């Protein structure tokens, strides 16, 4: 009787999804930088990170996608937003486009880099990357993404992993010390006086 539209097949759709996410990420990233209001920038940053996670998910890396949202969008940007709101930062008044010499130089250099990259991309010869052992098939055969990440992290890379956690612990202790600076100083002085 009738055939369902042929465009509904997974490979074409995934290319479409990739282009959608890529375009959205570009636009939203620009909005993060261009926005006048800091809160606007932070909200666009959340949307940006969310879209990035979508891109990961479309490449079948669900674990990385979930962690991306959980850590960056769910925790870190919340703190950004808190700080912006509590300091009650106002939108920058537009001063007109005036750059200092270093700023202009940085702009020029990044623009040249952008041109080179664009040229290379549209020349149709993407640089051939080196392929490692971690192809999608190999990972699926060995128990999936989450399992592989866990095994690497908790066997091969256990010491760097533990060191990183120590570093974070150090940062927490330092933050508490800074926050309670006066109290600690007072108690030290009292000890000295005794």
């Amino acid at each position, binding site marked *: 009787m009738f055939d369902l539209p042929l465009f509904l097949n997974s490979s074409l759709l995934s290319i479409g999804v990739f282009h959608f996410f890529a375009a959205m990420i570009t636009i939203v990233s620009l909005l993060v930088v261009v926005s006048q209001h800091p809160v606007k920038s932070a909200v666009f940053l959340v949307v940006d990170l969310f879209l990035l996670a979508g891109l990961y998910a479309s490449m079948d890396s669900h674990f990385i996608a979930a962690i991306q949202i959980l850590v960056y969008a*769910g925790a870190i940007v919340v703190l950004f937003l808190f700080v912006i709101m509590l300091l009650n930062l106002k939108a920058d008044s537009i001063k007109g486009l005036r750059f200092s010499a270093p700023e202009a130089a940085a702009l020029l250099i990044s623009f040249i880099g952008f041109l080179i990259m664009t040229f290379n991309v549209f020349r149709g010869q993407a640089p051939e990357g080196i392929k490692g052992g971690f192809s999608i098939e190999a990972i699926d055969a060995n128990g999936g993404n*989450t399992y592989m990440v866990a095994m690497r992290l908790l066997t091969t890379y256990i010491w760097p992993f533990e060191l990183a956690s120590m570093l974070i612990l150090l940062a927490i202790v330092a933050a508490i010390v800074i926050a309670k600076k006066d109290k600690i100083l007072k108690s030290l002085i009292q000890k000295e006086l005794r």
Partner: protein
Amino acid sequence: MGLTMNEFTVQFIATLLKFAVIAGLCINIPPIMVWAERRVPAFMQRRKGPNRVGIFKWRLYGLLQSAADAVKLIFKEEVVPEGAAKAFYHIAPVFSVFPAIMVAMAIPYGPDIQLFGYTIPLSVIRVDVGFLFIFAISSLAVYGVTIAGWASNNKYSLLGALRASAQMISYEIPLGMSLIPIVLLYGSLDLNTIVIAQSQIWKWGVVLSPISFCLFVIAMFAETNRAPFDLAEAEGELVAGFHTEYTSAKFAAFFLAEYVSMFVLSCLAATVFFGGWQIPFFDIRSLDVLIGIPGVSGLVGFGVLFVKAAFFMWLYVWVRWTIPRFRYDQLMSLGWKFMIPIGLLNVVVTAIVLAVIRF
């Protein structure tokens, strides 16, 4: 039929249908819960509660009062406060509703069903990291509250928003921590695998890890800002908290988000601790063959999960009308000084016991 369909097209259409059904369910949860929230306390306090609104002579125990209220809410005048950050003020309800409904998509509502020779999973988004997905998306709910409170240009709103977001961030930790022993026990991050593993009553999460269950239930109340942890909208102190300045349909959207996230957490509790769509001593998946209608097992599984979730929804209402509100410092010290240490200990003990048993 000359209907040719490939596997992908079938799954695509099935996903759209499942999405529509679950979204429709989510939108219909708040009216029913509002009705329950009026009738249950009436029952507990020996009064009648709303019982008048009905069609002609059928009163339906006042069930249509909710419908009347929904219509009233939507057609009310919309007031935007002066000095509000307009764009954020308008977008905040979306930030609230979107995560709530999206999380509902990851719950397994029933066993995989066989229809027309295709295997169709009964959750809209089936990923092998269902747990992480739920936590990731629900951690975005903070933004709706924070942005709403800040954009309203009202000090009560801002204070309510700060309270709510501090509370939600704090209690996300014990909520996540209470589920780590479950992940260790069943060895999977996939919710459907966890449900399938709970085929008998002594394999249920609540039996294997009762401390996790207690922590989860406490954190569940705090995470949805419900009594006794509803400090974000303590009416004696903050008028109504972060949604003080919201009216009409936007207020209804916050309402919707709250009830949908209650429903999702109830479903999650049922899935993780009470066997989800499984019932003890009987395999629902064998119903398809027994009765001979394909897909009937999915309906029965959905019903079983819904009954289990309904118990937790009732618990929400029950607790709300039983226990008075906490003070803010009590809330924070309960979260950080009691629940997180217990949760950590629970993870460590479970891991050691499992390691010893499997050794």
